C-alpha cells in the first residue's frame, strides 16, 4: 500500500505540472520546454527557506509563487518576441541557464550537493511525515489548482487564449494586445509549477539540480501531449499514464541486464505511436 500511496503523491505533483503546462501549450499553443525550471524555483525556494530560515512550509509556497512569477515575467517578456519554433528553442535556453544557476550558485543552492533535511509541512499538529496525510495535502493542492485552471479556461480569458492559439493575427485586429495575455498565462502556469516544486521538496526532504533538467521539461511536455491538449482532464490522465507506465514496466519480466533500457525503448515507441495515431492525445480536443 505504501508504494501505491507514494505513486499517488508523485502522480498528484506531476498532474499539477501537467495541468499548468497545458494552459500554456494546450490552450495558448506556445510550446514551452522550460516548465521544469519553475518547478525547480518552487522546490529550491521551499528547500532554502525551510532549511535556512524559520519560515513555515505554507509561507514558503507563497514565496515560491512570488519568485516564480517574478522570474517568469522577465523570461515571458523576452519569449514573447520569439515566433514559432524559435519560442521552443528559446525555452530550451532558459531551462539550461536556470539549471546552470541551480548547479553552480553554490552558496545559495549548495550546488551539486543538493539540499537535504527539508522538513515536512506543519499544520495544526497533522503529522505530514505519514505519506497518507501528505497525499491528502497534495490532492487538495491539485484540486485547488485544477479549479483555478478550470475557472481560467472557462472564462473569456480562456477563450482569448484559444483564439491566440488559433489565429493570433486575427484576434489582434479585434483589439487584444496578445503579448499581455501570453505573459499572464505564462506567469500563472509558472506559479502553479512552483507549488508542485514546493510539494516535491517537502515530500522527498532532499532536492538536487538533476531533477530540474531539460529532459524533465520534455517529460512534463510528454504528459500534456500524451494526455490531451487543451483538456485539463487530459493532462491529469497523461500524468497518471506516464507515472504508472515505468512502474508497471518494473514488473514486466524483461531480462535483468537490459530491463531498464527496454523500458526506455517502450517509452520512446509509445510517444511515436501516439503521435502517429492519436496526435491530439488520449482525450485532447485540440489537434497539435
Amino acid at each position: 500500500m505504501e508504494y501505491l500511496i507514494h505513486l499517488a503523491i508523485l502522480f498528484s505533483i506531476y498532474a499539477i505540472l501537467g495541468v499548468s503546462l497545458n494552459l500554456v501549450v494546450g490552450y495558448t499553443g506556445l510550446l514551452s520546454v522550460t516548465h521544469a525550471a519553475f518547478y525547480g524555483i518552487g522546490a529550491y525556494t521551499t528547500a532554502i527557506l525551510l532549511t535556512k530560515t524559520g519560515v513555515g512550509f505554507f509561507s514558503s509556497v507563497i514565496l515560491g509563487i512570488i519568485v516564480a512569477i517574478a522570474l517568469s515575467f522577465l523570461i515571458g517578456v523576452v519569449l514573447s518576441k520569439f515566433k514559432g519554433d524559435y519560442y521552443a528553442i528559446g525555452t530550451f535556453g532558459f531551462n539550461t541557464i536556470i539549471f546552470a544557476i541551480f548547479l553552480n550558485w553554490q552558496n545559495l543552492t549548495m550546488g551539486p550537493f543538493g539540499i537535504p533535511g527539508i522538513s515536512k509541512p506543519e499544520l495544526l499538529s497533522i503529522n505530514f511525515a505519514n505519506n497518507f496525510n501528505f497525499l491528502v495535502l497534495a490532492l487538495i493542492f491539485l484540486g485547488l489548482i485544477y479549479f483555478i485552471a478550470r475557472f481560467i479556461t472557462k472564462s473569456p480569458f480562456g477563450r482569448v487564449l484559444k483564439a491566440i492559439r488559433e489565429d493570433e493575427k486575427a484576434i489582434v485586429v479585434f483589439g487584444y494586445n496578445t503579448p499581455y495575455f501570453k505573459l499572464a498565462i505564462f506567469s500563472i502556469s509558472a506559479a502553479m509549477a512552483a507549488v508542485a516544486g514546493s510539494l516535491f521538496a517537502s515530500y522527498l526532504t532532499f532536492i538536487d539540480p538533476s531533477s530540474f533538467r531539460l529532459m524533465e521539461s520534455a517529460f512534463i511536455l510528454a504528459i500534456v501531449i500524451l494526455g490531451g491538449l487543451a483538456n485539463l482532464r487530459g493532462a491529469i490522465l497523461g500524468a497518471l499514464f506516464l507515472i504508472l507506465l515505468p512502474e508497471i514496466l518494473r514488473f514486466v519480466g524483461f531480462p535483468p541486464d537490459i530491463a531498464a533500457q527496454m523500458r526506455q525503448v517502450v517509452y520512446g515507441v509509445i510517444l511515436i505511436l501516439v503521435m502517429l495515431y492519436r496526435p491530439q492525445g488520449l482525450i485532447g480536443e485540440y489537434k497539435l
Partner: protein
Amino acid sequence: MNKLTKWVIGIIVVIAVVITGYFVSQNSSKVSTEQIKIGVVAPMSGNLAFLGEGIRDAMLLAQQDLGNTQYTYELIFEDDQLDSKITASAVNKLLGVNKVDAIVSFGSGPGNVVAPIAEQNNVVHLGIASDPNVAKGEFNFIHWTPPAEENKVFVEELQRRGIKKLGVFESNQQGAAAVMADLKEKLKETDIEIVTDQVFNVGEKDFRSIISKAKNSGAEIYLLMAFSPEVEVLGKQIKEAGINTPLTSIEAFELSEQVDLFEGEWYVNAASPTGDFTTKFEAKTNENPTLGAANAYDIFNLIVAATEAFKGSTKPTPNQIANELTTIKDFNGVLGNLSVDEDGIVISKAAIRMIKDGKPVDIDN
C-alpha cells in the same frame, strides 16, 4: 468528443490502475522467515548505466562467492536513472512490494532520498556515497572512503614529494566536490598552494580551453578530480596539449578503461582492493570494475556478516542488523580491512598506488 471515445478512455484508465494493483498485490510476497531480501537501487539506464551495471555485477559476484550460510540472501535490482523521483519510486516499490530487509543505494543524491525513507520504515540502508549526511540516523550507513581519509594520505604524499604548486581540474559532481571541499581545508594548514582550479560540468568532452588556462600556471602536478569517462578524455587532451606535467587523482585512475594513459602516475585510492576481486570481476564481466563496484561487493558481505551473527530460528530484525553493523571492526573486505564508526560510516584506509605497465600496483613507501 463523442461518447464512445470517452468510454474507451475511461476503460483504459480503469485497466491501467487495475493492472498496477494486480501486479503490486500479486508480487508482494509474504515476509519469509529465513530469506534476507536486499533491494539495490542504482542507475541501470541513462548515461551512467554502466556504473549501475558494475554495482549489479559486483553484488551478483558476491552472492556467487557466498559460502553456506544459515539464511538465504536474495538480490532485487531496481533502476533509478539517478533521478530523485524514480529513486523514491524504486525504494517504495522494494519496501512495499518486495518487503526487503536492507536497501543499497548508489550516489549521494539517491542516498539522501533513500535515507529518510529507510529511517521511517526501519530498514537498514547502506549507501555507496561520500556525503556523510546520508549516514544520519540509526538505520543509515555509507561505505565510501571518507574524503578526510583520502586527503590526509594525499597531502602527506604531496609533502613527501616536496610539491608546492598544485593544479586542479574538478568536475562539479557530488563525490568530487565533497573531496575538493575537504582538500582545500586541509591545504590551508600546509604551504602547498592551488595555483589553478578549473571546474567543468559532468559530461563535458572538450577541456582544451580550460587546459590552456591552466597550462602556464606553473603547477608541478595536476589533480584530475573526476571519474570516467571525463578523466580519460581530460588526460588525453592534456597530453595532446603538449603538457607532460605529472597527473594524479583520487580513485579515478584505478577505474579507468584506458589505464595506460596514466602510466607511471601515482594516485590515492580507497584501499588496495585485493587482486583477486579485480580478476574475478573481469572474468565474470570481461570489463574492469567500475566506480563503487568494490564497495558494493563489500556491502553485500557486510550485510551477510551482520545477519549471520544471529543464530536464532527466525531472521534478525532490521534493528538487530543495524546495531550489529555498528559493531563491525577490522572486517576483511575487498577494500582492505573495514570498520564501522559510530555515525555509520564504513572506514576503509586509503592507500597510495601507482600505474605500472598498465596495472595498478601498491607503493610501499
